[in-house]
Structure formats: structure tokens, C-alpha cells
């Protein structure tokens, strides 16, 4: 799954640590999501969407290789 987390974070000039604190997750989690190594749970995806004030589908988009699209 692709995501715009890094872009949204950069727009606010936030560090990964700051975003992690806002979402109450580890900085490693933020880094793993941004680099595409880890897809967040639905509750965390909703929290991210709420924090940035955008719908989930504008932040996370499926890739052709994702299982649900295969």
C-alpha cells in the first residue's frame, strides 16, 4: 500500500518523533509506514486520517500488487 504520510508530515514540518507522539506510536512505526515496510491497522489509519484532517483514501492507496487487488 502506498501512502502520503511523509509528504503530509513534511508539509507540517514535523519530525517522525513528533508524529509518533501525536499518534501515540513508536517512531519506528512511523518510519516503517513511510517506507512502505508496514501497513498500519485500520484504527491507526483512521487516527492518521483524523490527525491530518483528510479521508483515509487520500492518504493510503492500494497498489496493484496488494492482495485485495490481485
Amino acid at each position, binding site marked *: 500500500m502506498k501512502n502520503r504520510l511523509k509528504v503530509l508530515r513534511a508539509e507540517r514540518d514535523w*519530525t*517522525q518523533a513528533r508524529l*509518533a507522539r501525536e499518534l*501515540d*506510536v*513508536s*517512531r*519506528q*512505526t512511523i*518510519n*516503517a509506514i*513511510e*517506507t512502505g*515496510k*508496514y501497513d*498500519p*491497522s485500520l484504527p*491507526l489509519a483512521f487516527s492518521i486520517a483524523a490527525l491530518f484532517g483528510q479521508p483515509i483514501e487520500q492518504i493510503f492507496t492500494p497498489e496493484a500488487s496488494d492482495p485485495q487487488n490481485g
Partner: protein
Amino acid sequence: MNEENKRPMLDRLCGDMTESDRRNLNRANLWLALWLVSFAASTFLIKGDVVSSGLAGWIVAAAPLVVGLGAMLAYGRYMHQADELQRRIQLQALALGFGVAFFFGFGYRLLEKVGAPAADISDVSMVMAFFYFVGLWIGRRRYA
């Protein structure tokens, strides 16, 4: 170079945590340390024949089990409240440790029959612990 690669290697290896994760894991580690102490003390008392039978023997032998229950509860609390990526890393490490120990435990029985040195349950526990830590290391590298 991303932000992760700029961090000190030891920091990257240990992974960073939320405050509640750090607190819960410290608590679980404290229980684990208590278990180690109680296990060593009970082993010393029983093997040294300071206590061997009767009620005192049962109490000394059961003490590590009681402390171990506390360690399990503390670890369970950590897992229940853990950051979701940390929980995934822990689960993958537990799966590796348990899986290897399970198949090693049964497989080694056959190896013993063809001449391998005899092993007991504590050896299986050591294998489980070793591969659990290998799993943690792999997970932290994978998601670093």
C-alpha cells in the same frame, strides 16, 4: 538517507518505544530478573540439599513458578498495550522461538536414538530463548 539511518546503531538495534511500552517492558524485564534470581536460589537450595522434601521443599520448588506467573502477566500486559508494530515484531519472534523449539524438541529425540548427546527440556528452553532473540533482531532490522 532517511531519518532512521541517521540514528546510532545501538538505538536502531533496540528500537524506540512509546513511554507506556518502555514502562511495561521494564516491568516485564524486572519480573524476568526476579524469576532468574528465584530459579537460581531454588536450584541452589534443592541441589545443595538445604531443602529436599516436605512442605519447605515444595515451597522452594514452587517459588519460581509463582514468580514466573508474574512475569507472564507482566509480559501479557506489555503485549496487550504495545505499539502495533512492536507487537508484530514480538509475535514474529515468539513464533520463531516456539516453532524452532517445537520441532527441535521432537526432532532431537530421533537424533538421540542415532547417537546424538542426550538433551533435556532446559536445552529446548535455551533454543527457544535463543531463537526468540534472533527473531527480535530480525524484526527490528526488517522494520528499521
